[in-house]
């Protein structure tokens, strides 16, 4: 790992200032992605601004119709929270392994927008709002491509606000080695209708499956799910799975999610 100047601000303002000063500064949240990336020298920031010293960024607040999760809240804390919708807590409790869940954070995962990460699908399916130091960004506008988000330079995620769904379920077909989602599908019944988000499969990262949403709006049953209309050339094919197989898995995972919701 190349060396860097380390900063541990205790407020968001100080973090923004530190981020602006460095030639090529980077934020670090839990570090579960960034530190391995730096060890491989795929990233070599001049300055590392650690958000771990900002107490305001940690915590889960039940707002009645919604729940607001501070950006530096760990997956383990989300998984253990009774304020969080059960589908979201279950998703958090199945990310990585126990030690990764003790360090990894929701803000870090969402900001990184790894195309195989779990959280982005929950944000899209539940219609979450990403709250930053500058503004509030609807999830539908936030995830702009593989590892790309609407975040500006020096913009920092403070929290993610999730409206509570009527029902929801996330099904992940894990890569057996990495446990990342080969395909993950989050199905939610929200007050704005059925929303279905797919992670692990899209060329441009997480996306909503409009055709499946429409079919489930008319008939919320596993039989209604058909993933064959999702264009294969919009899906990722690699050594782990072909695009055709991922297209198939989207249907299987969506059907399992609907069946789980219907009980």
């Amino acid at each position, binding site marked *: 790992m190349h060396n860097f100047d380390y900063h541990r601000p205790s407020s968001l303002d100080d973090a923004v200032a530190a981020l602006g000063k460095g030639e090529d500064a980077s934020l670090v949240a839990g570090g579960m992605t960034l530190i391995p990336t730096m060890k491989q020298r795929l990233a070599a920031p001049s300055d590392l601004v650690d958000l771990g010293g900002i107490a305001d960024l940690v915590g889960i607040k039940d707002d009645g119709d919604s729940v607001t999760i501070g950006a530096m809240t760990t997956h383990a804390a989300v998984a253990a929270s009774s304020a969080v919708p059960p589908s979201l807590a279950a998703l958090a409790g199945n990310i990585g392994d126990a030690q990764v869940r003790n*360090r990894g954070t929701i803000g870090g995962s969402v900001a990184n927008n790894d195309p195989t990460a779990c959280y982005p699908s929950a944000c899209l399916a539940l219609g979450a709002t990403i709250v930053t130091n500058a503004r509030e960004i609807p999830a539908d506008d936030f995830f702009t491509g593989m590892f790309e988000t609407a975040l500006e330079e020096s913009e920092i995620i403070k929290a993610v606000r999730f409206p509570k769904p009527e029902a929801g379920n996330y099904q992940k077909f894990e890569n057996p080695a990495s446990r990342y989602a080969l395909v993950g599908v989050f199905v939610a019944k929200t007050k704005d209708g059925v929303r279905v988000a797919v992670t692990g499969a899209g060329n441009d990262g997480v996306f909503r499956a409009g055709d499946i949403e429409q079919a489930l709006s008319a008939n919320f049953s596993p039989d209604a799910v058909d993933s064959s209309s999702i264009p294969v050339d919009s899906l990722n094919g690699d050594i782990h799975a072909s695009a055709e197989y991922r297209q198939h898995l989207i249907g299987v995972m969506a059907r399992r999610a609907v069946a789980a919701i219907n009980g």
Partner: protein
Amino acid sequence: MPNVSMTVNGKQVSQEVEGRTLLSAFLREKLDLTGTHIGCDTSQCGACVVHVDGKSVKSCTLLAVQADGASVTTIEGLAQGDDLHPMQAAFRDCHGLQCGFCTPGMVMSAVDLLQHNPDPSDREIREWLEGNICRCTGYHNIVKAVKQAAQSMKGQQAAAAE
């Protein structure tokens, strides 16, 4: 270079380190606590698991500076003098190790599990140990050891309460 201060196995330590120094390297190379092993060095195998403020983490994926001010427990901090921690004793009794390389991480992970789940099922133990890889003896006796430790720790607590 940044200065880092933390409590390691109950002792206060303070040293200058490079920002990029990993907690695993800090423990092994600066403090000579070589019980924390480095296996894969890519946060997969779990040989490097230690507790930071009571929670198990992979010390190869944490910077020493990120643990500034924290309380760290390594495998060397579990035994009380010559008395092994119940988890260590159970690993020995149940033959939960062969070469022993993964054992420090296994023990530290398992101790964390029992902190919030004092009576785990086989399945819960296996799921919790997903981030700890053993390449020789397999997991069967490790799971047995964790169950035995859970029983003996419950017994100890009951005895202490009487």
